[in-house]
């Protein structure tokens, strides 16, 4: 092992559709974190193995909060404070502050609460398929199904009235990719969204309901556990995080099934495979598309034989971890019977996806309704012509032309 390792340029260029850059497999062979040089802010480390990713994402010596406002290795030129100016969002915080804030909303996202939401999600999915099949073929499954389903579900959870849901949906579908926006455009878009959320909070405060926004308002107004600004930022975080990644994964998963027809046929023939299929697709699909949210070592840490010095930054790479051949047998193959399947598709540690159980339910509902209602679902164009979005935090099908 060499003590000084030459840094490689990172991040890698975007790859085709749902492929994973083959360089990760080579990097994993070295067995430890890899020295990387980012476009701005110099060098850091990249965790590529399953074990190192779990450590970086869960060991309290690796801090999210310590990175905020620092000249750390990064993709964009400006040193970002946080996503919402100087107000920390959940992903920028460490325990126990993070635990306190997340605790206010965590109960709304547990397995049991999510199970209560399932019948409503099924109704919404059915309605979307009604609307899709009422239109001409081919239809666009992303616009007609993958995007609106999680959006409608999070709107229900947050208590967004139906009239406002339509407006918000229109606004979202018109929104340009985040990284393609100028600072001024991002500020304007954020301002609109914040105004929307503030009006929603005001209306829920006047007429509380059995929804998450009303519960958060109660925590603010009665418990004094949130500032008004924290309330707006937290509600916005849930709103944005609550649909986009789920929408991307619904589209990605349907695309993966349509391009793995033997697997799709096996699933249709034996629905008991569905939970395992969802976990396997979450493992197999490289959802992360960016080098966001690095961690900073708060003291010297030894990670798989390499010393991460205090103040150095480590990037997690869950997509690489999910193909770690020391954890997953034949990692580049889809296997709906894979067990156990300790994938990091929802990441790991304190920031393990708050909406993981909600996402699992939505994916299960989406696939069940599609298989029930559209058994002949197929791509309307060659798979190679299906466009994918670039420049977002997550990877996703841009449009999915289908017939049924």
């Amino acid at each position, binding site marked *: 092992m060499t003590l000084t390792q030459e840094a490689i340029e990172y991040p890698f260029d975007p790859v085709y559709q749902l492929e994973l850059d083959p360089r990760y497999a080579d990097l994993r062979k070295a067995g430890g974190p890899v020295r990387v040089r980012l476009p701005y802010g110099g060098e850091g480390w990249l965790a590529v193995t399953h074990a190192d990713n*779990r450590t970086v994402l869960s060991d309290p010596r690796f801090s999210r909060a310590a990175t905020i406002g620092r000249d750390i290795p990064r993709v964009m030129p400006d040193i970002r404070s946080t996503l919402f100016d100087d107000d920390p969002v959940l992903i920028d915080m460490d325990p*126990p502050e993070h635990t306190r804030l997340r*605790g206010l909303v965590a*109960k709304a996202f547990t*397995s*049991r609460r999510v199970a209560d939401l399932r019948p409503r999600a099924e109704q919404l999915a059915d309605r979307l398929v009604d609307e899709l099949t009422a239109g001409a073929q081919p239809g666009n499954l992303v616009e007609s199904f993958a995007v609106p389903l999680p959006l409608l579900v999070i709107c229900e959870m947050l208590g967004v009235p139906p009239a406002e849901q339509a407006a918000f949906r229109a606004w979202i579908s018109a929104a340009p990719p985040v990284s393609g926006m100028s600072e001024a455009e991002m500020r304007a878009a954020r301002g609109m969204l914040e105004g929307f959320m503030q009006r929603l909070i005001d209306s829920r405060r006047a007429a509380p309901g059995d929804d998450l926004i009303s519960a958060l308002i109660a925590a603010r107004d009665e418990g004094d556990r949130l500032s008004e600004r924290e309330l707006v930022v937290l509600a916005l975080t849930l709103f944005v995080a609550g649909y986009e990644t789920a929408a991307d994964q619904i589209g990605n998963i349907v695309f993966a099934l349509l391009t793995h027809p033997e697997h799709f046929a096996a699933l249709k023939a034996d629905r008991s495979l569905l939970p395992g299929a969802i976990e396997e697709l979450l493992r197999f699909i490289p959802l992360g598309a960016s080098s966001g949210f690095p961690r900073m070592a708060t003291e010297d840490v030894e990670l798989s034989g390499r010393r991460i010095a205090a103040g150095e930054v480590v990037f997690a790479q869950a997509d690489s971890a999910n193909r770690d051949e020391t954890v997953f047998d034949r990692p580049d193959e889809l296997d709906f019977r894979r067990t156990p399947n300790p994938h990091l598709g929802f990441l790991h540690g*304190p920031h*393990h996806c708050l909406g993981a*159980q909600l996402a699992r339910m939505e994916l299960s509902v989406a696939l069940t309704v599609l298989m029930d209602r559209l058994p002949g679902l197929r791509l309307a164009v060659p798979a190679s012509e299906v466009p994918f979005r670039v420049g977002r935090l997550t990877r996703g099908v841009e449009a999915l032309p289908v017939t049924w």
Partner: protein
Amino acid sequence: MTDGKDTGGRNGRWRVRVDRRVCIGSGFCYGSAASHFRPDGIKSRPVRPVAEPTELLLLVADGCPVGAITLRDQLTGALVAPVQEHADD
């Protein structure tokens, strides 16, 4: 109970349990409260079976994405977390 005698003047301590049949190894607990939980293979386990009541421990137990963590009053056995919100299940 191996620690049944260790209650003198310490009423109200919590018995901490991770149900390994339910645990999905999200790492939420040991990532949020490393003094209370630690990784064990691809799952999690309590560092100690009985702990002093703290807000952090309560938040972490309530925040487990699959409800695998239970906290019970060591003496009475009463469930402290997760908070039961639905009487019908």
